[in-house]
């Protein structure tokens, strides 16, 4: 599945149309806490989040996120869109809620790319 497929499934609007929509998406992660995202997400995931500030894009960039989906119809501040443009990470907004979106994407075949943030085997 690529970014364009995800946009279709979530009825999303691409906020930075210069982003590469052919990029592969291997799974998903939904979270509003950026530290949780950084701790748990694996590369090439779609990040579903209700957070709209530029830190979402920075987090996505650090964690090799394939695209960001802003849930519940949120429109981010212009700085967020600008950063997504310069970092070339697709930023999408959709009217659906987090629960609905996770369900849609999971049903479409995307696995979870979230692992436990407290993994005793790694300590």
């Amino acid at each position, binding site marked *: 599945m690529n970014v364009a497929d995800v946009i279709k499934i979530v009825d999303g609007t691409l906020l930075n149309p210069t982003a590469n929509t052919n990029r592969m998406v291997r799974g998903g992660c939904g979270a509003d806490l950026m530290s*949780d995202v*950084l701790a748990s997400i694996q590369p090439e995931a779609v990040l579903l989040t209700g957070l709209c500030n530029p830190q979402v894009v920075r987090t996505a960039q650090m964690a090799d996120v394939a695209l960001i989906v802003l849930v519940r119809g949120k429109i981010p501040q212009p700085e967020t869109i600008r950063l997504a443009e310069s970092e070339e990470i697709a930023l999408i907004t959709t009217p659906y809620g987090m629960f609905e979106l996770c369900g849609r994407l999971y049903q479409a075949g995307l696995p979870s790319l979230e692992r436990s943030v407290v993994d005793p085997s790694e300590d």
Partner: protein
Amino acid sequence: MEPKTPNPSLNLSDEAIGNISRSEELAYELRVEEVMTPAAHVVQSTMIMQQVLDLFRTARISGAPVLDGKKLIGIISIEDLIRCLIEQDCQAPISKYMTPSVMTIKRTDPVVEALKLFVSTKVGRFPVVDEEGNLEGILTKGDVTRGLLKALQRDYQVEEIRRYRASHLFEDIVSDRTSLILRYNIVAGDFTHGGAASSAIKRALLRLGANPQIARRTGIAVYEAEMNLIIHTTNGGVIRVEIEPHQISIEIYDDGPGISDVDLAVKPGYSTAPEAIRELGFGAGMGLYNISRCVDTMKLESVYGKGTRLRLRILLKDNETVGEGHSNSKGDSRP
């Protein structure tokens, strides 16, 4: 006939502007002179038709611009030559059979103007002239396509070249211990730029040829630390990254306020961040714990009232050293 120059400031809707691709953008940026071919074969109007016949035959061409000195005055084509041959008039001057007043395009016009002309006239090639009407070259649709492709490749290559150069940085430098040091000053409370330093560090590592997983681990660790400086410090702090082929050593330090209980601070879930920070998606008490999971060694020293110093180290295996020509590929950032 002079080519008309349509108004370059087209009325585009915001949506249409959003949909402009890089190649369309390039069509506006590139000038005709950057993509045209120099005219290889030209004839002077005073030459006779026999010379045109000889030129077309030896050069295997089907048309040529006609000049009066350097000024373009017409074009002579194979059809014109056939008319002349039927008349058996090979000693006539070219000016008798040429097609005068050809459509031209100016060398300084953007490529997009040429594209419009190709579409509106269905003509396959245009002579390119300067402000005085002197011939500068020839433009075909193929020239435009080649020019755009080259420009796109150039865009792409800039990053490739940077990456290549940096990825061999350490190879030619002889010393007992070579390292590259990057320093970033982080301003307290500057959430807008939060992560800019980490972003620059991650990009630098990728250019140096770091394996994507190493760049990712470093990026995440430094990002958490950078956010800590922004959220918690009194006067901001410094991130210092020392890159050596076999290890990345990172120091993040500030001059206060310091951590009162270091053991508690590294516990997952422990946080002193105010509610406003939590609304930004941080302050869940996972930062230092996250950092420790990304690095090979972590040492946290803090004196309450004085400041904090966090030392991190990421070790690189022989096949993943940086700056020694190990290549990575940006797309492949799998774990």
